[in-house]
């Protein structure tokens, strides 16, 4: 079975500090894509960062970066210089077996950034 697991239901961080959200996945596929999405109370899923499995270099988008460990099937998200606007649910997701097909989501981590 292809699964995505987030083991931290809730996390909190002080403003301006750094926080890391964990994600592991299970697949026998060699070709897949990994994503982190942010879901604020407005409910719309917003793409934070994307990683192709065939790329060894970790993806980075401004304050957001990932630590992609393919052998360990781990894909953690690091948020640097946390801001109050980062408070949201964060979901790890994957498309397995190529670029087509549906996203499989983890259960999410609720991140609270405290002033």
């Amino acid at each position, binding site marked *: 079975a292809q699964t995505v697991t*987030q083991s931290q239901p809730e996390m909190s961080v002080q403003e301006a500090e750094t926080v890391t959200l964990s994600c592991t996945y299970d697949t026998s596929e060699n070709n897949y894509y990994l994503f982190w999405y942010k879901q604020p109370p407005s*409910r*719309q*899923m917003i*793409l934070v960062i994307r990683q192709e499995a065939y790329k060894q270099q970790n993806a980075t988008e401004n304050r957001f970066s990932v630590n992609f460990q393919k052998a360990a099937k781990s894909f953690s998200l690091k948020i640097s210089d946390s801001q109050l606007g980062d408070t949201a649910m964060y979901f790890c997701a994957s*498309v397995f077996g190529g670029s087509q*097909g549906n996203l499989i989501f983890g*259960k999410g981590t609720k991140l609270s950034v405290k002033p």
Partner: protein
Amino acid sequence: GAGVSQSPRYKVAKRGQDVALRCDPISGHVSLFWYQQALGQGPEFLTYFQNEAQLDKSGLPSDRFFAERPEGSVSTLKIQRTQQEDSAVYLCASSLGGADYGYTFGSGTRLTVV
């Protein structure tokens, strides 16, 4: 349009009532997905269209759920004889062509069955 539009934003249905949820994807997006998100959970896949063809409906929980996209643009998710366990947020996403291009989500419809 500029984004994925879903309507209604909120829907309250009495148990046993039929409901129809609408998704208007970004113009030109070939792929369209429906997800069900229960409270406090991650979205779960329901069904996938490529243009007007429904390529995967393996996630539909029962035969009370039906989706269509007759002209390859707007899609409707219909739930017949709603039950309390159908209460959830229903998210729609569209894509130009899959993971290489990314997915754009709508704000969802929150369905409450009373």
